């Protein structure tokens, strides 16, 4: 199964509050009026130019020992993640990106030299990608017609080496929305996220990467992730 789409911001439903949270405001705390006006203006500007995109593909697969095995590719998933994904009979791999157009827009903002504008541009980009993660999860729910799946796990997260990106990209083949990885296994455009979701009756979507992370006071703890 493969689904991929470029979506509009209205479809994505990115809200001002999403952006505020990504800027470090606690849920429900409203920034001062100058900042709210700035965020609204920049978001409107961005919406005209940027179209975030996702691609999601599923494969049959299994967890052997603690490694996720898909189509002969053996991921070096850490024990904890392997255990959480135990029981999966299929896996969905995904790539999400705010796209080249976002980078160009953000570069333009940054070149103008205002530090607050640059920060807001960054926060909007991150919020876009995170919201896109949620969107993909909803898409997956629709496709699976209620079948159970895990939450998502990303190479680079929780002792899962970032070098494992290369395996994920190998499996995705040319189907990467133009997102590439460099020799440090980092994705370009920067505002991109990749990951894996296990599909299987016994899996628990409530066990998230956040719940594994020891940083209990993180400002994004239990934010609604992918």
């Amino acid at each position: 199964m493969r689904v991929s789409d470029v979506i509009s911001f209205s479809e994505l439903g990115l809200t001002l509050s999403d952006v505020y949270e990504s800027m470090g405001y606690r849920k429900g705390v409203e920034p001062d009026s100058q900042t709210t006006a700035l965020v609204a203006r920049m978001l409107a500007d961005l919406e005209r130019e940027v179209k975030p995109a996702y691609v999601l593909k599923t494969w049959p697969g299994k967890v052997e020992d603690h490694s996720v095995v898909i189509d002969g590719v053996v991921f070096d998933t850490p024990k904890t993640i392997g255990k959480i994904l135990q029981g999966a009979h299929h896996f969905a791999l995904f790539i999400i990106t705010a796209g080249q157009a976002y980078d160009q827009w953000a570069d333009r903002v940054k070149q103008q030299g205002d530090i607050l504008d640059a920060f807001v541009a960054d926060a909007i980009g991150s919020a876009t990608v995170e919201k896109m993660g949620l969107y993909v999860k909803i898409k997956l729910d629709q496709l699976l017609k209620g079948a159970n799946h895990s939450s998502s796990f990303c190479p680079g997260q929780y002792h899962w080496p970032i070098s494992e990106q290369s395996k994920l990209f190998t499996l995705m083949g040319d189907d990467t929305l133009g997102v590439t990885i460099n020799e440090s296994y980092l994705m370009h455009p920067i505002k991109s996220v990749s990951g894996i979701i296990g599909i299987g009756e016994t899996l628990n979507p409530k066990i998230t990467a956040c719940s594994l992370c020891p940083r209990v006071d993180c400002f994004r703890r239990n934010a609604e992730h992918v």
Partner: protein
Amino acid sequence: MTDLNLLYDAILNGKLEQAVEVTNQAVAEGIEPQEIINGYMIKAMEEIGLRFQNGEAFVPNLLMSARAMKGSLDILRPLLKGSNSVSMGKVVIGTVKGDLHDIGKNLVASMLEGCGFEVVNLGVDISSDKFIQAAKENKADIICMSALLTTTMNYMKDVIDALEAAGIRKDVKVMIGGAPVTEAFAKQIGADGYSENANGAVALARQLVSA
């Protein structure tokens, strides 16, 4: 007579135009730049920093204050006497090789710049060679490294080792930060300092250059 408390308020509340206006008035009246900076501007930055630390102010407030501070400093800088006081110090900053999380690093850079440091922002995925080259070229007082991936934060140690090998470790202070980094880790790898946020980073940088 200009009321310099208005400058303090302007910087605290992040009002660039007001800060510039009051600074210009003060300069016209012949008030010593150093007195304006130390007596009012730095105090305002300290207060906004405190509010940030207490959760009463947020990143945009810090940035607006830094922007106002920079506006005033740009006026005062040419008037400062002696080369030492022209800049607080020179900083080379980057996200280490293997990582590209740069929002926090950019914040640190903006705050340092706002508070009078000269900042060379190298960007992301920066190798030890690049850090060393930039430190040499710019005669940096401080190298700032940022990492958000636990898998790549160890690279900070590689950079410190490389500075040692290049024979310039004693010439430059090393500050590190990023969400997974801790004080203990900084000590362990032989960095000169760590701060958990952009506000603390400025105080730390001041401390390191005056040490």
